[in-house]
Structures are given as structure tokens and as C-alpha cells.
């Protein structure tokens, strides 16, 4: 009862923070759209993605980009809560443990899903024409939300582990780079040696391939299984790590 109440209060707090920080909203929603415009209209014709419209190839990767771009703000916000004194106020108030983290998880997932939905919406305006059935849409959405949840927990763990809000925000840098070294923009097998192997074995490639397959109406079972395994792995690691760091902080 009080856990739900306290968590809801914290979610409201974090949503207000998000709405008040134009930079966060820009990074999470607008910037990925700008990137998509750039890749599809400016660079898209230069990429050989093996037939079909580039927007159909790029949309799943852009969704993943949207997922990554907002995470830095979450890491910073979590760390600020821990290092700027407000957590001590919460601690001496008998608030149900973990409500602070729940607030961050729920608001981050909501903000990210919004950003991803916006990307998909704009992609449609740009000619994105998926062949997915309703069931495949649901599966793709489910996999994406699972990915958001997993990456969010990892981000929160980073935010808790970092020494300062600035170093917490730095976590976003590798995360933003990761989609570029995956099959998000061009297929992994068109990449140079070294980078290709990296792209093939990093988690975003199977996740993107799984979503791409579902959108195209031709599910890739291998990629989907790998994607699920990665999500569960990242999510469990992030969750356990976050809880351990949190226990040490409070």
C-alpha cells in the first residue's frame, strides 16, 4: 500500500523533472528524430542495405538510438539524488525502500517509450512501410520495452555507482556509440574487419535484427532468442548491481 503510494509520488516527481528539463526532452525525443532525418535523407542513398527502402532498414536501428539517447539523463538524475543530499531527507522519513529507484525506472521507461513511439511515428511519415501482422507488432513492442527496462536498470546501476553526476552522465557516451557499431545503420557484414566481429557479437545487433525481422513480417528466430537472452542478462545484471549499490548508499 505505502510502497505503491510512495513509488507513485516519486514517479510524479521524476516526470516533473523530465518535463522541466528541455535538454533531457530534446535528447530523448527530438535528437533521435534529427538523426533519423540525417541518416535517411542525407546519407541513406550512400548505404547499400541490400535492396528495399533505406527507411525500412533504418527504422529499427533509429528506435534503438532513441532508446540510448535519453539514458545519460537518468544516470545523472539518479546520481544527483544520491550525492546532493535529498536522499538523506528521504532516508529519515520512513519512505518505503526502493521508491526512489522505482520512480526513476518508471519515468525513464515512460520517457523512452515515448521517444521510441515518436521515432516510429515520424518514420511512418517518411515512408516506413512495415509488413508486420498485429501479433508481430505486439512482439516487437514487447521486445523493445523489455530492452528499455534492461538498459534502464543498467543505467541506474551506473548512476548509483558513479562518484558524481558528471561521471554518471559519461556513461551515456559508450551507450550512444554502441548502436553505430551494430547493424543499426548498415548491415554488420558490410563493415570492416574487427568492427564487423564487434558488431556481430554486441547485444544491440541481435535486438535490432529481431525487431527488424518482426517489422518486416519475417521473424528471425535466432536473433529473437539471442535478443531475449541479452535483455534478460543485461536486466538481471543491472538490477542486482543497482540494488547492491543502493543498499550501500542508503
Amino acid at each position, binding site marked *: 500500500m505505502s510502497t505503491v503510494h510512495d513509488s507513485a509520488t516519486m514517479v510524479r516527481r521524476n516526470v516533473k*523533472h523530465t518535463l522541466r528539463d528541455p535538454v533531457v526532452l530534446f535528447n530523448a525525443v527530438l535528437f533521435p528524430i534529427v538523426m533519423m532525418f540525417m541518416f535517411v535523407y542525407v546519407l541513406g542513398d550512400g548505404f547499400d542495405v541490400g535492396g528495399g527502402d533505406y527507411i525500412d532498414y533504418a527504422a529499427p536501428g533509429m528506435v534503438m538510438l532513441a532508446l540510448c539517447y535519453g539514458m545519460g539523463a537518468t544516470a545523472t538524475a539518479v546520481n544527483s539524488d544520491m550525492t546532493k543530499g535529498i536522499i538523506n531527507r528521504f532516508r529519515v522519513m520512513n519512505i518505503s525502500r526502493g521508491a526512489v529507484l522505482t520512480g526513476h525506472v518508471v519515468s525513464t521507461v515512460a520517457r523512452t517509450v515515448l521517444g521510441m513511439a515518436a521515432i516510429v511515428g515520424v518514420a511512418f511519415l517518411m515512408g516506413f512501410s512495415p509488413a508486420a501482422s498485429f501479433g508481430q507488432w505486439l512482439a516487437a513492442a514487447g521486445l523493445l520495452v523489455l530492452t528499455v527496462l534492461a538498459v534502464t536498470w543498467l543505467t541506474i546501476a551506473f548512476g548509483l555507482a558513479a562518484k558524481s553526476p558528471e561521471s554518471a552522465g559519461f556513461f551515456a557516451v559508450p551507450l550512444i556509440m554502441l548502436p553505430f557499431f551494430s547493424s543499426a545503420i548498415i548491415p554488420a557484414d558490410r563493415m570492416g574487419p574487427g568492427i564487423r566481429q564487434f558488431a556481430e557479437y554486441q547485444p544491440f545487433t541481435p535486438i535490432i535484427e529481431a525487431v527488424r525481422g518482426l517489422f518486416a513480417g519475417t521473424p528471425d528466430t535466432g536473433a529473437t532468442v539471442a535478443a531475449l537472452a541479452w535483455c534478460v542478462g543485461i536486466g538481471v545484471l543491472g538490477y542486482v548491481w543497482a540494488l547492491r549499490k543502493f543498499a550501500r548508499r542508503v
Partner: protein
Amino acid sequence: MTDMAIVASGLRKAFGDRTVLAGVDLEVRAGSVFSLLGPNGAGKTTTVNILSTLLRPDGGTARVAGRDIASETRAVRAAIGVTGQFASVDDLLTGEENLRLMADLQHLGKGGRRVVADLLERFDLTDSAGTLASTYSGGMRRKLDLAMTLVGRPRIVFLDEPTTGLDPRSRRIMWDIVRGLVADGTTIFLTTQYLEEADQLADRVAVLDQGKLVAQGSPGELKRQVPGSHVRLRFADSAAFDSARRVLTDATPEPDNLTLRVPGDGGATSLRRLLDRLDEYAIDVDELSVHTPDLDDVFLALTGHHSAEVTVP
């Protein structure tokens, strides 16, 4: 039933090999103001953190509101409010939203609105209730911080250096707020670096030095142990110094820096009389300063060393 709001015995705490508290015993009567006085690094915040359940002591026990801080943490937390040394307000929320957040977390329900409005009024924050806390001045942040602490109507309030960095006017406002709380029966545990603040507010004062309480008592009792105010006279050469020494027989000489300490309150009349006397004997004073007792004097009197020696850079 005891009428002690806080009872601590043998509190010890070390960070690494640096001992911060080396056995602190103290008692705070319910409804009174207790002030812990000490210079930077004395362990004031550490004491507050232990008593407010934010930090576990290495040794010793304490009961706050009759409950054990280690085994009855929740009950202790339900009875206390803490305003830390550094304002912990949410910068991205408005003043009013900060208070609403506290009201929601205290599960005040519909009554929360009333409590928030009252506090805004009482702390003279109504006009800025709708602006972000990040735009508040230092004094306003401190007030908001304290108001947030009071949302849950705590019986015992910890205030860690509530007026450090405030201008004299804001300091006075803070003092009035504290007096108002005491009038309502709240117990206040206050830390400060200012003797005057303890003097103004506290029923009992304890002086923390190198991890131990070196003195406890009413402000009056403490001040009696401190040398009163005096006038310091510095002379340009030892000839002037020596003649002044012969004229002002009640002065304490400090030959090393050619200075005389003359007891006195530094009021205009006594100052004029002092200077007239020196004039009579044609003794030139190089520098004159009036000295009123401060924390350093308390330390010197109580511990035999200056407070600065305690501070670790």
C-alpha cells in the same frame, strides 16, 4: 516514562584511522534547545547523523524519543525531522511542490494542502511558492529546507548549522522560527559554530573538542569560564610597550608582539578613558582592537588550545 528526548552514551565513530567521536555522552530534555558547539571538523555533523539514524556508530548507544536508534530505527524516524548542514531541497521543483512532496511522502492526504499553505505563510515563502527552488537565495533555501522538515510535525528537530552563511537578518528570522518551534513544545538539537547563536537559543550547550565533550552547561555557566571581552593595544616599539605596561597595571602583557590585553567591554566611555590615560603619559598606540569572546575563546578557556588546532585541513 522519561522526559529526556535524547539520551546518548559512549558514542564512538571513526572514519578509517581517524577517530571523530571518542565517547560522547549527552542528554537533551524534551522541549528544550540543546546546542552542540564546535569548530569545523569537530564531529558535529557526525553526531547529528548518528542520532538521526543516518550513520551507525562504531560503539555506544542512543535513545531518541525513547526508542533505540539501532533496533527501533523506524520509530525514531517517525519522531524526528532533520535539516542537514547543506540544504537538501529539490531544485527542479518549486517551493510549494517541494513541500507537497514531503506531505505526500508523509501520507498526509487531503490535509497536506493546508499544512503546506500554513508553512509557506509561516516561513514567508508564499510569494515565491511557485518558482523553482534553484532560483532561491541561500536564506530562502534554508527556510524551505526547514519547512520541509516540519511538514511531518516532528517532535524532535535536528538542525545542523542552520544559520551558517546567512546574513544577520536571515539569521534572526531563523532564530525566531526556532523559538516558535520551542514554544510549541518541539525539542531542538542544534549545532553551531557561533557562541552567540548558542547563547541566544540554547537551554544547554555542549562543546565538542577532538571527539569528546569538554564542557556542558547553560550558556551562562559556559561563559563564566571564558575570559570577558578585552581591548588589545599594540605598540610600535618596546619603549612604548614598557611604559604602557607600567601605566595599565591590570593588563595582560604579550611581549612577543608588543601587545597588551586590557579587560573591559570596549564601550565608548571606557575606551576614551583608556586612551586619555595613555595620552597623559604621551604613549602612542599603534593599533587598537576590541575583542568580544567567541568560540575560540571558549576553546582556549576550556581546552587550553585554539579551536583552529582541532581543524584538520
